[in-house]
Each structure stands twice: as C-alpha cells, then as structure tokens.
C-alpha cells in the first residue's frame, strides 16, 4: 500500500484538528517519505517528544508503509510564529 500526501493529511486532520498543516511528499512519488509541519491546540503544554508521539500515533496506520517521516515542526498555536 502506497501512502499518499492526502492520506497523511487526512489522518492528521481527523485526529489532531490542526490549525496549520503542511505535508510535503519528499519521496519523489513512491509515497514513502514525508516532511511535515503542524500546528495544533492538542500540542499545548506538551513536550516536544510528546508532540511527536501524538503525530506518530495519528499516523499509526500509515507508519508501517512510510520509510521516513520528518516532523519539521509540531507546535501549539501559542508558539507558532504564523498565528492564524
């Protein structure tokens, strides 16, 4: 099963309700490598490791098929430079 950018976005949106989400497919098409930035209220008050864990948990279903996931940013809205 190849994972698409849409799959990743859908999974993250449904479980983390992000106010900002950017997913970049860095795999050149094979769907195995992504970079992402995410801002969500669910990250408020959580350590970086816990925030990454939330992202990983949200993608639990896709994870076995993703070779590399690079979480560039996982911030609560209060720490996000571009508040929306």
């Amino acid at each position: 099963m190849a994972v698409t950018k849409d799959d990743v976005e859908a999974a993250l949106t449904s479980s983390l309700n992000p106010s900002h989400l950017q997913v970049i497919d860095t795999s050149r098409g094979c769907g195995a490598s992504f970079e992402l930035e995410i801002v969500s209220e669910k990250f408020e008050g959580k350590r970086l490791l816990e925030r990454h864990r939330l992202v990983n948990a949200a993608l639990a279903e896709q994870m076995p098929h993703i070779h590399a996931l690079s979480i560039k940013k996982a911030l609560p809205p209060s720490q996000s430079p571009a508040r929306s």
Partner: protein
Amino acid sequence: MAATVHLTGFRAFHLPAHTSSSPQPKTLAPASTSFSSYSPEAPSLRSIPGGRGPRRRQKGFRGSFLAASVLKISDAELVLIPSEGSGEIEGLLPPVAGVYGVYDKNEELQFIGISRNIAASIMAHRKSVQDLCWSVKVGLVDGENPDKTVLTDAWKSWMEEHLAATGKIPPGNQSENNTWVRRPHKKPDLRLTPGRHVQLAVPLEQLIDKLVKENEVVAFIKGSRTAPQCGFSQRVVGILESHGVDFECVDVLDEEHNSGLRETLKSYSNWPTFPQVFVRGELLGGCDIISSMAEKGELAAFFKK
C-alpha cells in the same frame, strides 16, 4: 635504501584537515573530525576506492624518484617554531605536502610526521604539545597532491635515516605514544547479546531496559558509529559528537548481536523509527527532535546538566 628495519606499526600521518577518502562518514561535526590521523600502514589507506591499477607499476619508479627528490633529514634546515601568539607559522612554513621532524628545546627529534599541509600540522602540534615543539625540519614532496605512498616513503626514509644515525625511534612515533598522533578514539558499539546462537535467559525488553539505564546516553542507530547506514542516524551521531557528548551506540541492523532489537525497541519506547536517543533511561527523541534541539541550542544546555 640500506636500512633493514621494519617501520610498520608506527604512526606518522597527520591530517590537519579532513582530507582523507577513508570510509569515515561525513559528519556535521567539523570539530570532531578536523583532526584525524592514522597509521601509514592502516588498511584504510590501502583501500582507497577507484582504479589504481597503473599506479602499482610505477611504484618502483616513484620510490627511486622520491629518494632523489626529498631532502635528507640531516640536510634539512632547522626552523624555529614561533610560540603561540608571538608569531605566525604561515610564511615560515609551507602549507604544502611533505615530511617533517619536530625537535624540542634540546634539539632532540621528537616526532617525524607527514602531512598534506605542513604549516597547519605544525600549528596543530604547537597547540596540543607546545612544550615539545621548539623547531622543525621540513622535506617537501613534489607534486600538487602527491600519492599517499609517496608521502609514506618519504616518512620511511627520514625514519630510517634517523634510526641509522641514532639507533632510536623518535619518542612521538613509538606505537604506544599518543602525544602527537591521536587515534580516533571511537568506542566500539554496544551489543545486546553475545550472538544469535546464545539462548537468552531474560527477555530482550529487559536487556534494553538495563542498557539504557546503565548508560547515560545511548543512541540506537542503523549501522555502526563509524559507518552509519542511514542519513538520519549519521546526523544524530554527528550532532552528539559535535556536542562532545559521551555516548554509546547500538546498531539495530546488527542481526547477529542485536537480533529482534528493531521491533522490540519500537514497542519498548513507543517510538516508530530510528535513530532513537536515550538519556538516563528515557527516550529523548529521534533525528528530528535531536536536530531541532541542536538548532535551538537546547541540546548543549541539556547535556550540561
């Protein structure tokens, strides 16, 4: 050459900058790799990739050519090394390849080395062993970028000449002496089990638990510390090294000694990917977290604690 002494096992190659093509990984840590050195007989020097078939035939020619072109140590001029702060080495010494001998205050030869940038090597020696760096003799080797064997031969000829004249090997070139040539003191990777054939008495989780609690910092990576097999692991090793962190490495791809570790560790740490860095028994994070902490300067503060 008349001398029959075997000079293998002594160390001479001093690389002021990271110019080697040995299989050492590229790292993000200029500080930790800017000063590497190894024996002229080390296997890494022989196994330079690329076709070098024709070279072999030229070796005899090169050797005799070299004997004529490199100054004898007894003919080389002794140049005073300015002490740190009082003068620049640039201008006094050439920034090119060759063999050099460093003398102490009493004009005792302390160390014979070879380098691709003599000035930089002397500068590094002056910094690390100022007391023994009084003056230096230099024999240049021809060519822009001479072959390592040419440099090694030049080194051998100086060593043999000195040995024939004094009967002594310079103290800095003796194999147990680490004053002049620092061996890359890389720790061996940790292993969870003695081997696949050994029946484990305790579950793997318990071994992992013990390992991360007994060691301050443990990095579980793909590949070995010296040759990480994945870019993320390589980056983490580089970051930890550049922060001067004393850490242990475990190769999760080592099926012989760490069989089953990948799957077990993922569930132990509830973390899906590698590398994983544990500090004092707790997962600090993977590559993204370590990188981001390093960028923000948090990592340095974290390890100071």
